[in-house]
C-alpha cells in the first residue's frame, strides 16, 4: 500500500491544539452539518443574493441556521461563508467586504458553538472561486492563494477552529487553498465534488485525490467528498478513498437525494430515512466525518444522528449493497480500480517536428 509510505508532515506530529483534532482523538465518528443554502432560502434568502451578506444583515437567522445543526447533534458545523471569497463577492460588488463577512460569519459560529455545552467545531467554509485556472481560464495559483488567504484570515480572526474547503473540482484550486491555509497557519479539511461520471468536473478520480492530498506539504486533518449527484455515487467515492489506503480521516457530505420540481418549487427527494441509511453506510464505507449537503434539513440530521448513535457498525459494503439500499449510480464506472473507465481507441500518437 503506497498510502502507508506517505510523508509525515509537521502538522500531524504537532500537538493537537484544535477542537477537531481533539474530537478525532476520542471519537471514531463525528457528525457534520447539512445544507446551508437550502435552509437559508427557506428563511427568505432571495435567488442570487449572496448569503454571506446575511452574516451582517441578519445575524439572528445565521445563528438559527447554525443552531439547527447543533440541536440535531452535529459535532461540526460550517460557517455561512462558502461564497465569501473576493472572486465570488465581486459579482455582487462586495469584494471589499471579504475580511468582515468571514470574520462575522465565524464569530456568530463561535457564539453558537460555545453555548452548546459540549465541544462543537466551528469550521470556516471556503468554496471555489468559480474561475477556471490558466491556461484555459483566468485564474492563477498566485491569485488563488491571495484570494483564499484573505478569506482564511477573516475566518481565523472570527474564531473558526478549522478551515473547511468544499465543492472543489480542480486540483490546482485545492492546492492553492492548501497553500493559503498554510500562510494563515490554520488546520483545515477539504472536500471535492465528484459529480461527473464519478469524477470531479475536472476529471479527478477518488484515487487521484488521495494521491494529491498526501503529497501536500500541509495536508488536511481530513479530506473527502461533498455534494455531487446522489448518496450512492458519494459512497462509491468514499469506497474509492478507503481503497487508496490512506489512514487520514475521510469526510462524506452527500446531498439529500436529487432536486425535483413541483408546482414552481424545488425540493430534494431524499427522505430522513434514506439519509439515516446513507449515514450508517458512509461509516461502514470508511468515513469518519459524516454529514449532508444540499437539501439536508434538520429532520434529516436528526435521523442521521439517531442512526449513527444507535445502529452498530457493519462490514464495508460492496458497490452492489450500496445500490440496493440507496439506488443506482449515475455512471457505470468512476475511473478507479481495474476497470478504469471507457477509453477511446486511437491510432498511435505520432510526434511531429
Amino acid at each position, binding site marked *: 500500500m503506497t498510502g502507508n509510505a506517505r510523508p509525515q508532515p509537521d502538522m500531524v506530529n504537532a500537538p493537537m491544539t484544535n477542537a477537531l483534532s481533539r474530537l478525532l482523538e476520542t471519537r471514531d465518528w463525528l457528525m457534520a452539518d447539512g445544507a446551508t443554502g437550502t435552509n437559508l432560502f427557506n428563511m427568505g434568502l432571495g*435567488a*442570487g443574493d449572496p448569503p454571506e451578506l446575511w452574516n451582517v444583515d441578519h445575524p439572528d437567522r445565521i445563528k438559527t441556521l447554525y443552531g439547527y445543526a447543533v440541536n440535531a447533534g452535529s459535532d461540526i458545523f460550517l460557517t455561512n461563508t462558502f461564497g465569501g471569497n473576493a472572486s465570488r463577492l465581486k459579482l455582487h460588488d462586495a469584494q471589499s467586504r471579504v475580511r468582515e463577512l468571514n470574520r462575522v460569519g465565524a464569530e456568530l459560529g463561535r457564539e453558537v458553538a460555545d453555548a452548546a455545552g459540549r465541544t462543537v467545531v466551528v469550521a470556516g467554509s471556503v468554496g471555489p472561486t468559480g474561475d*477556471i485556472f490558466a491556461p484555459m481560464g483566468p485564474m492563477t495559483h498566485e491569485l488563488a492563494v491571495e484570494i483564499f488567504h484573505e478569506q482564511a484570515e477573516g475566518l481565523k480572526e472570527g474564531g473558526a477552529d478549522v478551515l473547511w474547503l468544499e465543492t472543489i*473540482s480542480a486540483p490546482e484550486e485545492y492546492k492553492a487553498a492548501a497553500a493559503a491555509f498554510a500562510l494563515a497557519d490554520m488546520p483545515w479539511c477539504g472536500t471535492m465534488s465528484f459529480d*461527473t461520471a464519478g469524477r470531479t468536473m475536472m476529471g479527478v478520480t477518488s484515487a487521484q485525490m488521495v494521491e494529491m492530498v498526501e503529497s501536500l506539504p500541509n495536508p488536511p486533518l481530513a479530506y473527502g467528498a461533498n455534494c455531487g449527484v446522489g448518496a450512492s455515487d458519494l459512497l462509491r467515492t468514499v469506497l474509492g478513498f478507503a481503497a487508496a489506503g490512506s489512514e487520514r480521516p475521510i469526510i462524506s457530505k452527500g446531498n439529500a437525494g436529487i432536486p425535483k420540481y413541483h408546482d414552481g418549487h*424545488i425540493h430534494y427527494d431524499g427522505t430522513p430515512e434514506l439519509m439515516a441509511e446513507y449515514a450508517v453506510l458512509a461509516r461502514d464505507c470508511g468515513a469518519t466525518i459524516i454529514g449532508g449537503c444540499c437539501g439536508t434539513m434538520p429532520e434529516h440530521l436528526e435521523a442521521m444522528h439517531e442512526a449513527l448513535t444507535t445502529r452498530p457498525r457493519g462490514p464495508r459494503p460492496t458497490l452492489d449493497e450500496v445500490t440496493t439500499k440507496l439506488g443506482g449510480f449515475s455512471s457505470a464506472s468512476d475511473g478507479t480500480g481495474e476497470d478504469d473507465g471507457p477509453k477511446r481507441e*486511437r491510432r498511435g*500518437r*505520432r510526434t511531429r*517536428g
Partner: protein
Amino acid sequence: MSDEEDIILSELNDEDLVAQMMDDLYDGMKEEIEESVQILLERGWEPYNILTEPLVGGMTIVGKDFRDGILFVPEVLLAANAMKGGMAILKPLLVETGAPRMGKMVIGTVKGDIHDIGKNLVSMMMEGAGFEVVDLGINNDVEAYLAALGTEEPDILGMSALLTTTMPYMKVVIDTLAEKGLRDDYIVLVGGAPLNEEFGKAIGADAYCRDAAVAVETAKSFVARKHNQGVAKA
C-alpha cells in the same frame, strides 16, 4: 524534435491530414489546427468543407467522449480553443462565400444565477460545432432575453441555471415568450446541474440538455428539423 517519426503536415494527403486534424483537435493542438486549415485552403478546399469535415467532425468525437466520461472539462476546453483557432481563419471566408449557417444561439444564465462555467462550456462547444453564439453572460431577466432575441434573431435560446432557486425563472421567460406569441419562433434549450428532463418538460422548454455535448447534438437535430419544416412549407 528531430524524431524520424515526425510528421510534416503539408506532406500528408488530404485524407490523412483530415484524420490528423481530428486527432489534433482531440489533443487540443491549436497551432497544428491553424496550420492544417491553411494547408487545406491552399489546396483549394471550400471553407465550409474544412469547417464541417475535420473541425466539426473532430469536435463531435470530443463531444461524444465528454458525454461518455472519457474526456473531462480541461481537455474539452483545450479542444474548443484549438477549434477556435481554426474558426478564426475560416469565419471571414465563410461569410464571403455565403456558406450555409449552422444556426445561431443566444445564451445566458437566468436572473439571480451567477454560475457560468456550464454556460461557458456550452458556448464553446456550440461554437466548436460551427454555431454562432451570442453570450449574454450571467443574471439575465426576461427583458434582457427578449431584447437579445429581437436584435440577434437567433434560432435557439439557451438558458442555464445552477441553483434550485433560480431554475423556476426559466419558466417565467418561456411563459413571457408564449404571452407575446413568440414562443414558437425559437428552439428553447435549458440546462444546469440541478435540472432534469422532467423539469424541462414541465416548464415548456423544447429540451433539457444534460451537458454541453448533449446541447450541441440537440441543437443540431432541432435546427435540422426546423430547416426541413421550412423546406416543406416552401
